[in-house]
């Protein structure tokens, strides 16, 4: 079922690395303008619908991310997000890859875990045990330009750089690559693997080195969701980034009736067209990019 969720909300995602656009809304009975946020994805209202018993749902529409502008990013872009009851991560990954095949043709599908990808594409045998120095040596070995502003011992950040600078450009070449089992610290609202608590049941799908989709086997528990939100807020505070109001309606919904067992995925539609049409940048496949809005 297609659902229509609000773009404008009094709540925003606390995710440390997502910046919601905000606007001032005049409401009757309020002396001052109220702050409302434009959604970065329809995830929270969709989860409220799932809690209320909607069953499988999808959203196709605009989302907004402040500050994101590059050949691969637009502040306003089109997202296809959908949820499947009873699907585990692997089933969701396959379905996401099949949807991509509908547009890009019958490319072969490859599934690889985060840890395997570091081994195969960056020669780092066990990334979970590797040190910051191992990651820096890897960047040097692959002739990655010097990095400015990262502490020498910040392993998580050096690991991220190995992923974005060394591994991602090698993913999805003439194929659809599903990268799964991200580290638990990147779980967002994905479940943690019961087999390995270092890993989250989160995946991303890559074609030609470009991330097309991001999905989770969804966290169901309201209490843990609340803890993850609090951690994000603390991280914002530690980094001096503005705080946001947490979506209490989502948290209440998850507490009253926990989320049914499901998986969900969000797919960047403009990026899919970008690849299908062989464009050089996202704005070429959009009738009105922000530069032209």
């Amino acid at each position: 079922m297609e659902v229509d969720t609000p773009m404008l909300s009094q709540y925003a995602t606390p995710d440390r690395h997502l910046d919601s656009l905000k606007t001032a809304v005049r409401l009757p009975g309020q002396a001052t303008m109220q702050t409302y946020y434009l959604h970065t994805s329809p995830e929270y209202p969709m989860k409220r619908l799932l809690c209320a018993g909607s069953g499988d749902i999808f959203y196709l529409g605009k989302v907004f991310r402040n500050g994101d502008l590059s050949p691969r990013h637009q502040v306003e872009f089109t997202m296809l997000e959908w949820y499947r009851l009873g699907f585990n991560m692997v089933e969701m990954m396959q379905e996401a890859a099949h949807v991509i095949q509908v547009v890009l043709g019958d490319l072969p599908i490859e599934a690889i875990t985060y840890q395997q990808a570091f081994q195969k594409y960056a020669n780092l045998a066990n990334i979970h045990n590797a040190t910051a120095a191992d990651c820096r040596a890897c960047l040097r070995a692959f002739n990655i330009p010097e990095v400015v502003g990262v502490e020498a011992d910040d392993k998580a950040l050096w690991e991220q750089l190995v992923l974005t600078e060394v591994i991602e450009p090698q993913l999805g070449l003439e194929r659809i690559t599903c990268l799964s089992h991200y580290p638990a610290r990147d779980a967002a609202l994905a479940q943690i693997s019961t087999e390995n608590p270092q890993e989250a049941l989160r995946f991303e799908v890559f074609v030609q080195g470009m991330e097309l989709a991001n999905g989770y086997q969804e966290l169901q528990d309201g209490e843990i969701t609340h803890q993850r939100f609090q951690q994000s807020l603390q991280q914002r505070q530690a980094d001096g980034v503005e705080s946001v109001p947490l979506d209490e309606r989502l948290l209440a919904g998850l507490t009253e009736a926990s989320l049914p067992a499901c998986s969900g995925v969000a797919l960047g539609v403009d990026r899919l067209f970008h690849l299908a049409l062989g464009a050089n940048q996202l704005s070429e496949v959009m009738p009105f990019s922000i530069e032209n809005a």
Partner: protein
Amino acid sequence: MASVSTSEFKNGLKFLMDGQPCSIVDNQIVQPGKGQAFNRVKFRNLITGRVLEKTFKSGEKVEAADVMDTDLQYLYTDGEFWHFMDPASFDQYQASEAAVADVQKWLIEQDMCTVTLWNGDPISVAPPKQVVLEVTETDPGLKGDTAGTGGKPATLSTGAVVQVPLFIQIGEKVICNTQTGEYISRAK
């Protein structure tokens, strides 16, 4: 000196890197969505002309460089320095050989050039896109030849050597493209 954050990075922004002025030629945001954002930056060292690449953690700051492009008239060279003048203020600037190394052979007295000043001193010079120069030396060519059927080297009055059509003779004036170093046409 003012500092500039990565959020203000854009093409053409001038900043100091290792004490030398640089200009951004490409700035791309790497925004993984789930992690720290970075700026992948290509920049030209304005003194050496070399293009370098670095990845900055978003939010990092660099020192702004007092670099500006200004239109100046080329006056003359005394062999050690190349002298330029602002035709409005009559202020004079002297450029070292390093600053004019690549373009010396296109500098013609009285021509307007774009001179890049760093803290008030010329560090690079861009001559006009097209210049008119006299041929001082070339082999005699054959009559009836037209442009496009081969050519021959010709030395111009500034010392520049370009390929010209066979019909060009010593003493004639030719128009050259200073960026490609190619002959364009005979000057009238």
